[in-house]
């Protein structure tokens, strides 16, 4: 086929392109992923006995802020990495900052408590549940984000996959935090932050396979 012929075919009956299409696709994927993760939660733990939001502890608000902050910063980074040649990685700084803040807070809490209590604080109740549930809840958001990104044009597939994994993990953690607040800040840093990072690494490995175009 000659290139001129191809250009003719492409330009015939040209469709208009609306602005913001890419961002909308990512937002829709996030909404679908969050809804699916929530269904997982309900299926596993049933409808909560108390009305949701009845128990509003400081730690729960902190966990929500941490995880949803990661989702927001990661989503903004994702939209960028789905655009070829896009400069600027400001959201990456925000993600690093969130992790730093939570780990510094965790260290401070540990320093201020007696070393004998460290085991109880860090291992806390249900650390195994975090380790299993957060990645499990992240599967659906990750799938929907991959669907959205395949509609974009990511050129760095490892980085895009890692970001998608991070967002999915953070969303999974947010849904889990809705069910069960972390016992303490160090607990949150280890058993929320850890699984989120694991999701990100898995995303980086899967990215080049799933996101090729």
């Amino acid at each position, binding site marked *: *086929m*000659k*290139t*001129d*012929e*191809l*250009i*003719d*075919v*492409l*330009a*015939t*009956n*040209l*469709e*208009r*392109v*609306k*602005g913001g*299409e*890419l961002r909308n696709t990512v937002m829709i994927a996030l909404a679908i992923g969050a809804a699916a993760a929530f269904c997982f939660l309900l299926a596993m733990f049933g409808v909560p006995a108390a009305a949701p939001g009845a128990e509003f502890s400081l730690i729960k608000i902190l966990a929500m802020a941490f995880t949803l902050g990661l989702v927001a910063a990661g989503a903004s980074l994702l939209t960028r990495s*789905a*655009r*070829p*040649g*896009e*400069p600027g990685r400001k959201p990456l700084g925000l993600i690093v900052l969130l992790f730093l803040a939570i780990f510094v807070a965790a260290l401070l809490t540990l320093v201020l408590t007696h070393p004998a209590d460290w085991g109880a604080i860090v291992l806390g109740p249900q650390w195994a549940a975090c380790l299993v549930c957060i990645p499990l809840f992240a599967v659906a958001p990750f799938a929907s984000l991959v669907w959205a990104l395949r509609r*974009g*044009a990511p*050129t760095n597939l490892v980085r895009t996959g890692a970001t998608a994994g991070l967002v999915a993990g953070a969303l999974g953690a947010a849904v889990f935090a809705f069910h069960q607040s972390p016992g303490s800040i160090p607990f949150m840093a280890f058993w929320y932050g850890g699984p989120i990072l694991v999701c990100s690494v898995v995303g980086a490995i899967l990215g080049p396979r799933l996101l*090729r*175009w």
Partner: protein
Amino acid sequence: MLAGLDGDAAAHKALLTRLSAHLRAYFKTRLERIGTVPADAEDLVQETLIALHTRRHTYDRSQPLTPWVYAIARYRLVDYLRRSRGSAMDVPIEEAEKVLADEDPSSIESSLDLAQLMARLSPKARQAIQFVKLDGLSISEAAARSGMSQSAVKVSVHRGLRALSRFATERRR
């Protein structure tokens, strides 16, 4: 580019024609530098044009155009090199001279065969592309002739082009 995004076909055509010249020069020098035969440059130009077209919604209107175009071109080049590793070395060198001697770019044929690629589409998408993109029927005419709704025709064309883009890059194994 902006006029093309807003649906100006003439502007879009002019842009793609100009970009194809840049892309041709880019791919030829790159392929020569790596030591492979630049015979596939025209394939890459066309694959990139299809990618630029089907993914033009990823262009941010507030950003300069060149980095966007070259990021896509570079991605296509890297993907091509990964796919063709090994087989690219088999091409005899005489063929390379023939391609280099070919001066008129509009007469260069790529190995992309539109009819062959179209044959792999779903019947609905194939019909929509045939009517709208090849025969140049308007959306409403195509809708009337195929018995689909107008938005279904648009979706079929959109999906069909994306599938063609995928087939074009997958055909090298």
